[in-house]
């Protein structure tokens, strides 16, 4: 009998080798207590959080927390049902209303996670003879949406407008086409040239889906994302987003102006065949989304934090994922997994948590220390963070 687990042997071995060296497991950290959006207790030590995607710091907002508690009292702990059966409460509709107001769009559909939003929308709208044209650095949920459906998949080189244009022109003019892009690519924190890419896609008769998971609440005048910032939101057919970043809870969504959009509620399997979000979660989401509409000052402070961290890390001699700060993600490129893991542990010992990211999640086989800033990081905290990077970088020989 062959062991079905033998296919995992290479990754088991890689992991064992890393941990034998005495390295703390970077993928097994426990947050023992969480004090605020920017501070938690890990291994008994006060730790600044710089890897949470909690961009707008809404997780401890008093109004958000109060809305969740009220919903727990009023509606109970869970819906125990699908959105299309017994799982749509007043709170789910209120959450979709908040999204429609936030984006200024006609339709909104809330999923149980952001992953399921991509899985559901992509696999459902692109059928067997249709084409999905996607950036090769797309998130796993986009690739999995492609794999769940049965459309023809055409990848193009990351952020390459000409590569996209050429491929669109080679496809049959009459075929259905869905171009899938992201506003911010989460590994390096770089943004897409959406203005040009959306124009090229529309010119070829394609529909356009943009995943704005890492830009919602922060980028664009109203926090609607990179498509808003570049003035092309009106030409985007579907915006995908998540509640687990700026919104500060969990869940996913799609907003659209397509006149037939509502039919998706009946035909989209990752929407139908799963339980809906608990009432407390949609209550916190709706409250948070409405507060994010009016958060220009926080957006400005987050940009300041991002610029300062980027400039400071550069000055220390680290290699970064982008030449200038483009989002609230700053990726520090490490020479290899061993050095990356050592640096990650040294930072943790200093009292700083960042994400260690490695292949296959990262492009070009890179190991990254990914930092995501929060609007509630104070100026002093950003100063502390830079001090910790300097100390850990020198201790591990990453910088001189």
């Amino acid at each position: 009998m062959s062991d079905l687990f033998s296919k995992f042997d290479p990754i088991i071995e890689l992991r064992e080798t890393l941990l034998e060296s005495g390295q703390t497991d970077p993928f097994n950290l426990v947050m023992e207590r969480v004090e605020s959006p920017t501070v938690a207790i890990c291994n008994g030590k006060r730790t600044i959080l710089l890897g949470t995607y909690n961009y707008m710091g809404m997780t401890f907002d008093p109004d958000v927390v109060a809305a969740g508690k009220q919903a727990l009292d009023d509606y109970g702990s869970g819906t125990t049902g699908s959105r299309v059966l017994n799982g749509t409460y007043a709170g789910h509709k209120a959450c979709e209303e908040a999204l429609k107001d936030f984006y200024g769009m006609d339709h909104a559909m809330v999923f149980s996670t952001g992953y399921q939003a991509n899985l559901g929308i992509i696999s459902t709208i692109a059928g067997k003879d249709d084409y999905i044209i996607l950036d090769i650095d797309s998130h796993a949920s986009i690739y999995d949406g492609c794999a769940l459906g049965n459309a023809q998949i055409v990848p193009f080189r990351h952020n390459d407008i000409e590569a996209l244009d050429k491929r669109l022109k080679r496809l049959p003019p009459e075929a259905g086409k869905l171009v899938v892009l992201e506003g911010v690519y989460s590994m390096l924190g770089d943004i897409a040239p959406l203005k040009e890419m959306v124009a090229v896609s529309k010119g070829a008769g394609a529909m356009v889906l943009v995943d704005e998971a890492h830009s919602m609440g922060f980028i664009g005048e109203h926090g609607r994302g990179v498509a808003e910032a570049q003035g092309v939101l009106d030409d985007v057919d579907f915006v995908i987003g998540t509640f687990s970043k700026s919104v500060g809870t969990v869940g996913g969504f799609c907003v659209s102006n397509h006149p037939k959009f509502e039919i998706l509620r009946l035909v989209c399997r990752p929407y139908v065949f799963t339980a809906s979000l608990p009432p407390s979660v949609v209550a916190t989401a709706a409250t948070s989304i409405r507060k994010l509409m009016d958060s220009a000052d926080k957006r400005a402070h987050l940009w300041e934090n991002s610029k300062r961290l980027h400039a400071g890390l550069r000055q220390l001699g680290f290699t970064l994922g982008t030449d200038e700060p483009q989002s609230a993600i700053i990726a520090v490129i490490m020479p290899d997994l061993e050095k990356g893991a050592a640096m990650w542990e040294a930072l943790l010992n200093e009292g700083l948590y960042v994400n260690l990211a490695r292949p296959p999640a990262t492009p070009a086989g890179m190991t990254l220390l990914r930092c995501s800033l929060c609007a509630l990081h104070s100026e002093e905290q950003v100063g502390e963070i830079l001090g910790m990077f300097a100390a850990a970088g020198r201790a591990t020989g990453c910088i001189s």
Partner: protein
Amino acid sequence: MSDRSQTLAKVLELIAPLNKKGVDVSEATRFAQDLEWDSLTVLDFVATIEDEFDVIITMNMQAEIETVGQLIDALGKLQA
């Protein structure tokens, strides 16, 4: 030269710079096992082939192409 041998010659030329192991390449050579290309190298190579022959090789088709010979066959069909 026939169309097929012209295609083969061009494909071999495009494989050469990515043939880091110095493998002796024939139509039977497998991209993953023999050339030991990772997924990123494959993506790069496919993009180059697509531009050279002005075709689209979807990921669905790529899943069926394991050897150099199978790629030549696929290109023949795509250009027909």
